[in-house]
C-alpha cells in the first residue's frame, strides 16, 4: 500500500489546478510528491536554481522576490510557485523571504510534465498563471535567453560560401556542389551583390534553357533581403516570413557578409511552432489550405506565449503572420488572374502597420496605385482587393467595421489622389479628418513596390508638419479621457454586470496618438510606437525621461492586453476590457502608474502644440 494519505488528497482536491484532475491523475500526483519543511534558515536548500520543481504551499507563508529584491507575490497555503522555470527551462532566480515556517509540497519536472500532458485543464491553468506572472516580473535581458532572442551570430556555423560576380553559372554550380551548399553569395570586395540558390539554377537556368557560360549576375537575386549578425533569430524568422525566402545572407556591422541563415537552421534551433506555422502558411496550395492553417494561429500563439519572456513578440509575430497571409492571398489571386497590371502597394494601416496587432484586431488596409493606372487596371485591383480582404476575414482577421479596407473603392488611390486626401485632412482638420488621419498616418507597405511607397510616405510626412494641424491633433488628444479619477482611483465603465476599463480605447490608443503626434512633428515615418520613440530619443521636443516612461507604459499596457485576450475566460467580456479588481495588487499599481504617464503626456502635448492654435 502506498502513501496515498487521505489528508493529502483532501487538500489537493480543494487546490486548483489539482481539483480538476481525474481521480487516477490525482492519485498519480499524490504518489509522486515530496514534502519539505521551509524556514528562513533552509530556504536556499529548498529552492535551487539547477533543480526546477513545482512547489505548493501546504502551510506557512512567504514572499516571492526576484533576484534584485523586488517583491513578486505573497505565497500562502494553496499557492503554487516554481512553474515559470519549469515551463521555460530557465534557471530559477527568484528567492523566498519566509514569513511563517511551513510545509511545501513539491513535484519534479517529469511529474509536472506528465500531469500537464495528460490533463488539459491542468495545462491551461499553468499557461494562464504563467502569462499573469510575466506581467509582474520585470523583464530582464541578463537571464537565460529564449531561443528566439538568441543572436544570429551565435548560431552561424560556417563562413559564407561566396563567388565573385564575374564568375559563370557553371563555376557557381561547381562551387555549390563542392561545398555542399544550397546557396551561394555573390560578393565583390566584401560587398554583397546578390544571392544564388539551387532553385534559381533550376528555374532561371535549366528550365529557361540558359547557357551555363553566362555570368552569375544574370540569374542571381540582386540586392536580396538581409539580416545582421547582432539581430535575433526572431528577426530572421520575421524577415523570412515577410519575404517568403529560405536563405538570408547575414552581414556584420560593416555590411560585410559573414554567413547565411536558412529556414532549416532556424528549425534545427527548435522545432518551433512559429517556424512551422509560417512555413505551412506559405506552402498552402490554395485558399482553403491557407484558411485551414490560419485557424491554428490562436492556439499556436497561446502555446508560444508561454515560452517567450517578452510577450510583445506575439504582437510582432501576429503582424508578420498577417503580412504573410496577405502576400499569399495576393499571390494566389495572381496565379489565377495574372500579375498586377501596374505598380502598386498593398498598404497596412493601424495596428498591422504599427506591429502591435492582437488576436482581436480587425483589418485596416488600402491600395496605393501608380499614377498611370487605367480604369481597366483599377478593376483588376478592385477584384484583387476584394479577394484578399475576404480571404483575410476567413483567416480570422475580421473585416473592418469602419470599412477602412482595400476592397472599399474610397481607399484605392493613386499617389496623387492620396496626396490630395492627406492635404484635405491637414488643411481642414475636422474631428472626422483628425480621426481618419490618425489611422492613415500609421502605414506600412506589405506588398508591391517599395519605392512607390517610400516617396509617397515622405511626401505625406512633409505635408503634416503644419502647426495648425498638429495643434488640432493635440486638442483632440486632450479631450480623450484617461480612466484615472480623483484620488488616483480607477474610473470603470459598467456594462451589464461587468465593471471594466477599455484598455485599448482609454489607454493604448491615446498613448499611440501622443507618440504619433510627436512623430508627425518631427517628420518620422516609422509606424510602430517603440520605433517612433526610439527615433525621438535625443530630440528636444520630448525629454528622454518622458520618452522612456512612455515606452515602459506602452510595453506594460500592450502586454497586459495580450495576456488578457489570450486567457480570456468569457466570450461575453469585451476583447479589450480589464476588470481592475481581477488584477493583482502590483498590476493595479503598475496600471495606475501607466495611466499617470499618459495623463502627464496628454497635458504635455496640449501645452507644447496647443499654443499653435
Amino acid at each position, binding site marked *: *500500500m*502506498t*502513501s496515498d*494519505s*487521505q*489528508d*493529502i488528497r483532501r487538500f489537493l482536491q480543494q487546490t486548483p489546478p489539482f481539483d480538476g484532475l481525474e481521480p487516477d491523475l490525482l492519485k498519480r500526483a*499524490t*504518489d*509522486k*510528491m*515530496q*514534502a*519539505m*519543511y*521551509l*524556514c*528562513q*534558515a*533552509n530556504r536556499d*536548500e*529548498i529552492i535551487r536554481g539547477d533543480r526546477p520543481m513545482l512547489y505548493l504551499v501546504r*502551510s*506557512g507563508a512567504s514572499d516571492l522576490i526576484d533576484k534584485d529584491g523586488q517583491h513578486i507575490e505573497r505565497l500562502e497555503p494553496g499557492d503554487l510557485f516554481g512553474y515559470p522555470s519549469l515551463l521555460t527551462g530557465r534557471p530559477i532566480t527568484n528567492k523566498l523571504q519566509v514569513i*511563517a*515556517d*511551513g*510545509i511545501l*509540497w*513539491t513535484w519534479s519536472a517529469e511529474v509536472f510534465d506528465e500531469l500537464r500532458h495528460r490533463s488539459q485543464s491542468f495545462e491551461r491553468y499553468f499557461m494562464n498563471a504563467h502569462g499573469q506572472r510575466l506581467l509582474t516580473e520585470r523583464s530582464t535581458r541578463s537571464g537565460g535567453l529564449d531561443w528566439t532572442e538568441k543572436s544570429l551570430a551565435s548560431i552561424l556555423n560556417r563562413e559564407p560560401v561566396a563567388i565573385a560576380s564575374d564568375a559563370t553559372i557553371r563555376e557557381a554550380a561547381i562551387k555549390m556542389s563542392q561545398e555542399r551548399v544550397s546557396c551561394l553569395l555573390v560578393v565583390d570586395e566584401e560587398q554583397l551583390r546578390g544571392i544564388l540558390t539551387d532553385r534559381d539554377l533550376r528555374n532561371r537556368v535549366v528550365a529557361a534553357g540558359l547557357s551555363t557560360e553566362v555570368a552569375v549576375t544574370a540569374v542571381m537575386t540582386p540586392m536580396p533581403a538581409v539580416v545582421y549578425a547582432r539581430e535575433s533569430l526572431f528577426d530572421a524568422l520575421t524577415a523570412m516570413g515577410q519575404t517568403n525566402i529560405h536563405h538570408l545572407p547575414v552581414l556584420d556591422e560593416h555590411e560585410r557578409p559573414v554567413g547565411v541563415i536558412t529556414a532549416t537552421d532556424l528549425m534545427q534551433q527548435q522545432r518551433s511552432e512559429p517556424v512551422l506555422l509560417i512555413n505551412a502558411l506559405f506552402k498552402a496550395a490554395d485558399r482553403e489550405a491557407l484558411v485551414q492553417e490560419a485557424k491554428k494561429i490562436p492556439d499556436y500563439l497561446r502555446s508560444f506565449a508561454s515560452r517567450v519572456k517578452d510577450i510583445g513578440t506575439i504582437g510582432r509575430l501576429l503582424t508578420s503572420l498577417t503580412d504573410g497571409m496577405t502576400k499569399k492571398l495576393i499571390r494566389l489571386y495572381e496565379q489565377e488572374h495574372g500579375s498586377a497590371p501596374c505598380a502598386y502597394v498593398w498598404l497596412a494601416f493601424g495596428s498591422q502597420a504599427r506591429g502591435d496587432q492582437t488576436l482581436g484586431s480587425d483589418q485596416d488596409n488600402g491600395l496605393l496605385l501608380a499614377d498611370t493606372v487605367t480604369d481597366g487596371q483599377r478593376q483588376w485591383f478592385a477584384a484583387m482587393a476584394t479577394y484578399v480582404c475576404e480571404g483575410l476575414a476567413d483567416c480570422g482577421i475580421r473585416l473592418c467595421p469602419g470599412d477602412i479596407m482595400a476592397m472599399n473603392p474610397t481607399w484605392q488611390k493613386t499617389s496623387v489622389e492620396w496626396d490630395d486626401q492627406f492635404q484635405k485632412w491637414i488643411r481642414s482638420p475636422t474631428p472626422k479628418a483628425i480621426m481618419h488621419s490618425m489611422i492613415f498616418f500609421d502605414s506600412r507597405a506589405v506588398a508591391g513596390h517599395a519605392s512607390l511607397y517610400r516617396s509617397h510616405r515622405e511626401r505625406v510626412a512633409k505635408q503634416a508638419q503644419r502647426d495648425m494641424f498638429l495643434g488640432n491633433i493635440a486638442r483632440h488628444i486632450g479631450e480623450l479621457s484617461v480612466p484615472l479619477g480623483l484620488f488616483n482611483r480607477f474610473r470603470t465603465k459598467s456594462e451589464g454586470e461587468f465593471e471594466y476599463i477599455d484598455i485599448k480605447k482609454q489607454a493604448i490608443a491615446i498613448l499611440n496618438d501622443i507618440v504619433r503626434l510627436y512623430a508627425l512633428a518631427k517628420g518620422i515615418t516609422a509606424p510602430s510606437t517603440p520605433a517612433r520613440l526610439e527615433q525621438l530619443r535625443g530630440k528636444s521636443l520630448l525629454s528622454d525621461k518622458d520618452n522612456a516612461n512612455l515606452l515602459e507604459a506602452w510595453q506594460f499596457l500592450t502586454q497586459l492586453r495580450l495576456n488578457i485576450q489570450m486567457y480570456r475566460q468569457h466570450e461575453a467580456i469585451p476583447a479589450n476590457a480589464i476588470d481592475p479588481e481581477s488584477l493583482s495588487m502590483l498590476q493595479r499599481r503598475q496600471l495606475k502608474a501607466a495611466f499617470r504617464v499618459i495623463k502627464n503626456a496628454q497635458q504635455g502635448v496640449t501645452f507644447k502644440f496647443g499654443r499653435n492654435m
Partner: protein
Amino acid sequence: MTWLGQWREHRQPWQKRKWLALDIETNGLNPEQDGMLSLAWVPIYPPCIALDQSRYHLVHSDIALNQSAVVHRLSQEDIASGRPLREVIEAFIAAADGHYLVGHHLAFDWAVLQRALYLLGIKWRPAGRYCTLHAEKKRLERHSQGISQGALTLAASRERYGLDAFVGHHALQDAIACAELFLAQVYLSTGGKGVSARSVLNDGR
C-alpha cells in the same frame, strides 16, 4: 558496520545522512505483549520528505482487537486483510537500512519493532535513533519552561513550530507529521548550519 565506520558517518553533516520516520500501531500499550497492527514509514532526505517513498502496511493477525481500536480505528476486517508480519518487517528493513530512525516517543516503536525482530529471528539495527519527543522535552527544559501535561504530544509539539494540528492516529499520517516536526526541530535548533549527524542524534536521545 564497524564502530569506526559508524563514527565517520555520524561526523557527516546531518543533511547528508538518510533518516526515516516511522509509526507503529499496536493492540495496546505494552510492547512486550501487544502485537503490531500497522507500520508506516517515510524517508527523510533533508530538506525533503520523500512522500513518494512512504509506505503503510497493515499486519495480518488473528488477535481480538481490544479497547485500543477506539484510538487507531482499525477493524478486525482490516487486520485480517493485512500482510504477514515477516513480509512487512522485511519490506521495512529494505527501506530503512542505513537510515537513522525518527519517531515521536521512538522508544515505544523501537521496543515493538525489536520484539517483532526477535519473534522472526531477524537481526537488524538502524544507523541511529532520534526521538522527536525527547528532543522537544530537552528543548523546553533548556528554556526552563514548566512542561504542562499534554505539551509533548505530537500535535502540541507541532503547533509550537507553526505546523498545523492534524487528526492523528493513522500510522502514515503520524509518520509524516513526525517527519515534518523533525525537520522543523533540527533546522530551527541549528539555524541551517550543517552540524554533524552525531550532534543531532544527541539532541534526540
